């Protein structure tokens, strides 16, 4: 299918949805991990775009403009969620009890990953495995990881959005990294290695 040229940008949410709907939806879905919420965020993005169209001066592409609006909607979504103070997570406790012996020595140490791991960046299957691992995290861990690592907000801003302290955010990130690393090792790196 041929894409319409970008300069055709006009006040037309139907056309925006047609041209960018899937990209916006996927962007939101990866981050909020809920189809209904992602759909509402796309809808709110189009509404904001419609109302703020006067400010769009064509300095960026239509898609960049829409994604920028969506990113604000995503942060708003996390801000509106009820504050979860606790950093306790059964998933991590369970993981740590398995991964480490007493005195903090590895019981199940990280396995080596293939040398050509760099090539995964272009592999769609890898990112599908990543999204599945990310979808398995509890909200406190995933939300902090999304804001810090995907949206690249500064810690001080993440603290404001989630309503928790910096050390709380850092603990969540640390746990999310451990769990994601192990999940990818099990569902991707060791599998790929075994097949080849």
């Amino acid at each position, binding site marked *: 299918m041929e894409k319409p040229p970008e300069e055709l940008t006009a006040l037309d949410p139907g056309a925006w949805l047609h041209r960018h709907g*899937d990209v916006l939806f996927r962007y939101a879905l990866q981050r909020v991990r809920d189809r209904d919420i992602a759909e509402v965020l796309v*809808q709110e993005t189009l509404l904001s775009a419609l*109302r703020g169209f006067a400010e769009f001066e064509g300095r960026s592409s239509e898609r960049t403009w829409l994604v920028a609006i969506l990113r604000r909607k995503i942060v708003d979504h996390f801000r509106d969620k009820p504050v979860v103070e606790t950093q306790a997570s059964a998933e991590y406790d369970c993981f740590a009890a398995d991964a480490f012996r007493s005195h*903090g020595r590895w019981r199940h140490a990280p396995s080596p990953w293939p040398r050509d791991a760099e090539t995964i960046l272009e592999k769609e299957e890898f990112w599908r495995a990543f999204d599945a691992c990310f979808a398995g995290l509890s909200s406190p861990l995933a939300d902090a990881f999304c804001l810090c690592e995907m949206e690249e907000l500064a810690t001080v801003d993440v603290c404001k959005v989630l309503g928790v302290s910096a050390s709380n955010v850092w603990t969540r990130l640390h746990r999310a990294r451990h769990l994601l690393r192990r999940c990818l*090792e099990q569902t991707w790196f060791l599998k790929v290695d075994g097949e080849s």
Partner: protein
Amino acid sequence: MAIFSAVRLVLTLSCEESTRLVSTSCDRGLDPAESWALRLHVLVCRSCRRFRRQILFLRKAVRIRSRTVSVNDDFGDNATKLSAEARQRILQSVIRKENDE
């Protein structure tokens, strides 16, 4: 006193604590004692060296992907696309809310 606690950190750092320092290095940076403790630990611990390499790699990968996702058009399967019904719902809702103004 500071030197004493720094030396103690270097000598007693466990693998679990060293993984925590890897995260800390990503989020706020390490103070000199932490930095030396982690450096010496990964020098002698292959598992933690591997852990650090993998965590830093994943971090970089996630950031690269997040910055470029909006230009990939036909990436993803139907599970990550909007259904025709969802498109309809979105459009109707946008039009209705706009007319409510």
